[in-house]
């Protein structure tokens, strides 16, 4: 979804939207990778993939806790984390071109911060599950990348991007526009606040809302089935329908052609070997035939 936000940047003001989209794509890669790794760390600690098995982990996994928080803040676009800068630029670009897109992005940004902080609060706060084994922080080799990425997520926004990427053009004018940035941050905070209320402490508000909204919640519970769609897209389409045929094509058609050239040469060599019979008469015949052929050809073509 956030990548969708990034891609929409294409619609924006020529280079600006594009640049912003790219910028976001990269910062997004960074904090998504961080989330991915923290998830790994949590699973490592709890030996489970399910959120209902987690809760109150902040005491047990301090490093994971802080780094996850950084990633969550970055993805929600809270300053000064990297997501703020890149998202801000996308919004700015969208604002100048397409208002509808702009507002949609505002709303989705709010939802993003809501869902990510729902995760955060449920896992690290919330009710404390009784664990069979006491969860413990991951070893150093897992936490170092976490810390590294967290630092990067926190600071990447300050990379002087426009100088880097537009070395011979005029730098993009990308001053943070308060009128755009402020609502964006507020919406992000709103999402966080919503998650706080609903999930910080174990309570029955979510259930009541569920009852109220019925189907909509169950659809969102399944993330609008986006995970299923995602799996379908990657596994079925990307892997089976794109990557596998490409791998096959590469092995059998492209490489087959290259190898085929070699094989044909060797085969040809094998075939013509028999022409060299070892018989004197044949040698003499070929010789004389060659002479005659040459004479005929060249007298015909080159004679004056």
């Amino acid at each position: 979804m956030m990548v969708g936000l990034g891609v929409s940047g294409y619609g924006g003001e020529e280079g600006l939207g594009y640049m912003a989209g790219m910028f976001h794509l990269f910062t997004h890669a960074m904090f998504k990778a961080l989330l991915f790794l923290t998830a790994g760390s949590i699973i490592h600690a709890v030996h489970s993939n399910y959120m209902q098995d987690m809760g109150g982990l902040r005491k047990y996994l301090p490093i994971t806790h802080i780094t996850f928080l950084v990633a969550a803040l970055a993805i929600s676009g809270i300053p000064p984390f990297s997501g703020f800068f890149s998202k801000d630029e996308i919004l700015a670009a969208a604002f100048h071109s397409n208002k509808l897109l702009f507002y949609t992005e505002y709303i989705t940004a709010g939802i993003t911060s809501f869902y990510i902080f729902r995760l955060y609060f449920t896992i690290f706060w919330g009710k404390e599950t009784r664990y069979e084994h006491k969860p413990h922080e991951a070893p150093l080799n897992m936490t170092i990348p976490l810390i590294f990425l967290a630092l990067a997520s926190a600071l990447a926004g300050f990379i002087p991007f426009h100088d880097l990427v537009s070395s011979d053009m005029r730098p993009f004018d990308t001053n943070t526009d308060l009128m755009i940035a402020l609502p964006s941050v507020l919406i992000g905070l709103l999402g966080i606040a919503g998650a706080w209320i609903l999930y910080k402490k174990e309570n029955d508000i979510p259930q009541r809302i569920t009852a109220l909204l019925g189907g909509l919640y169950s659809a969102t519970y399944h993330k609008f089935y986006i995970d299923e769609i995602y799996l379908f897209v990657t596994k079925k389409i990307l892997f089976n329908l794109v990557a596998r045929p490409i791998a096959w094509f590469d092995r059998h058609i492209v490489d087959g052609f290259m190898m085929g050239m070699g094989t044909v040469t060797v085969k040809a060599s094998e075939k013509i070997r028999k022409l060299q019979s070892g018989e004197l008469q044949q040698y003499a015949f070929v010789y004389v035939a060659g002479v005659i052929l040459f004479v005929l050809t060249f007298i015909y073509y080159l004679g004056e």
Partner: protein
Amino acid sequence: MNILSLFVLVPVLTVVGIMFTGGLKGTRIVAVVGMGIQLLLAAWLVFYYLAVKGSGDLNEMILVSDYTWFPSLNIRYTVGVDGISVSLIALTAVVIFAGVFASWGMDYLPREFFITLILLATGVFGFFISLDLFTLFLFYELAVIPMYLLIGIWGSGPKEMAAMKLTLMLMGGSALLLVGLLGLYFYSAPDGGAFTFNILELAKVHMPSGAQRFFFPLTFVGFGVLGALFPFHTWSPDGHASAPTAVSMLHAGVLMKLGAYGCFRVAIFLMPEAASEMAWIFIILTSISVVYGAFGAIMQKDLKYINAYSSVSHVGLILFALLMMNKTAVNGAILQMISHGLMTALFFALIGMIYGRTHTRNIYEMGGLMKVMPFLGVMYLLGGLASLGLPGFSGFVAEMTIFFGAFQHLDLFHRAATILVVSSIVVTAVYVLRAVGIFMLGQIKNKEHLKLQDAKWHEKLSTITLMIGIIGIGVFPLWLSDTILGSLQPFMDRLSAYLH
């Protein structure tokens, strides 16, 4: 004695030194000393270059020196460097230095191995300092042919087939190249006078466009084969997979850049008209390379195959950027050469180290290795993150610059190609994370793997050297990109002079 010639002389002397030593210990010490000197020389060269440029030197090439070799044919030994070659020389020095450490335990015919490996490096260094197409071509072939022995003798898997395929395809490419170079030579004196192979001289000559149309594709494809241009990339997966670690490192890390560098410095620079006319063909091919390499990597089970296809994709991106023919994109292309050189060398080094422990490269036969060998695991992960273009690493800077340059073309064709190529980043993320997820994280699949040890000191040295480069460029990109940009001006001038 010209200081640049030391870059050829030191490896040659190292080779001679190795000839007179025996055993693994002796040879590798000589090799380390020789390549260490080479690394210091390269470091000196970088600082010297910056100092010279800082003092306001406006020459296109510095440290130029010129000796007549074959006077009757006007073949000369001309050397000189600009910012681009300086950075590539530095890259080569780093990679070969790391490569020597990566082959620390080469116990089968160690003397022959190091001799052949360093001969290959000699070719690469010679190639980057050459300004005369004859010597350039000589060093180019010198860099390619040791691959046959290196893969054939010290490789693994279907090594004979892989070695033969790689050598023949690359030499086939260089055969095309030879014709291209001869064409440049014989069209170098339109007003009479001596023909020349000198790049700087050739740059002053306007080759007839008809001749350009004939010789440009030969030259571009000739170099492009080494840059794994689709559909001439099939040597790459097999070759890289079978090659011993240090050779994969050097080959993917540096040798493939020879192809890209040649495409830039010879094909596009000297035949700009045909280049811009035919760019569309090669843009299509390179776009295919980029996307296709990335998708090709997804389905691979063998770590080396994954990295080989990823190299096809990344080097394809370099060629793609060169064909955009504007300053930003070309700058990005050269950044990408350096960045990918370090990254892929790191990957191959790590894969070699992991393979040396687990004796398998099949990702499905491994799992949870992060717990057993945290150092190697973390390094692999960082390399992977660099590969998918995470900020803070070199890949990000390079790719961003390339996409910006590419995006300066406003027409539909270029834009469509660019968007297609950009999408490969997503695919890159898929194959990098997929591999990491399968073999690094999760449960340990093979109980035997629990006994494995983490990296030894020489392995750490080898990988850390490369990692410093990757992060260094990621954090201080301007330093490198300024070095390159200063040298791109003649290229841009020539392009604009002939295209308008």
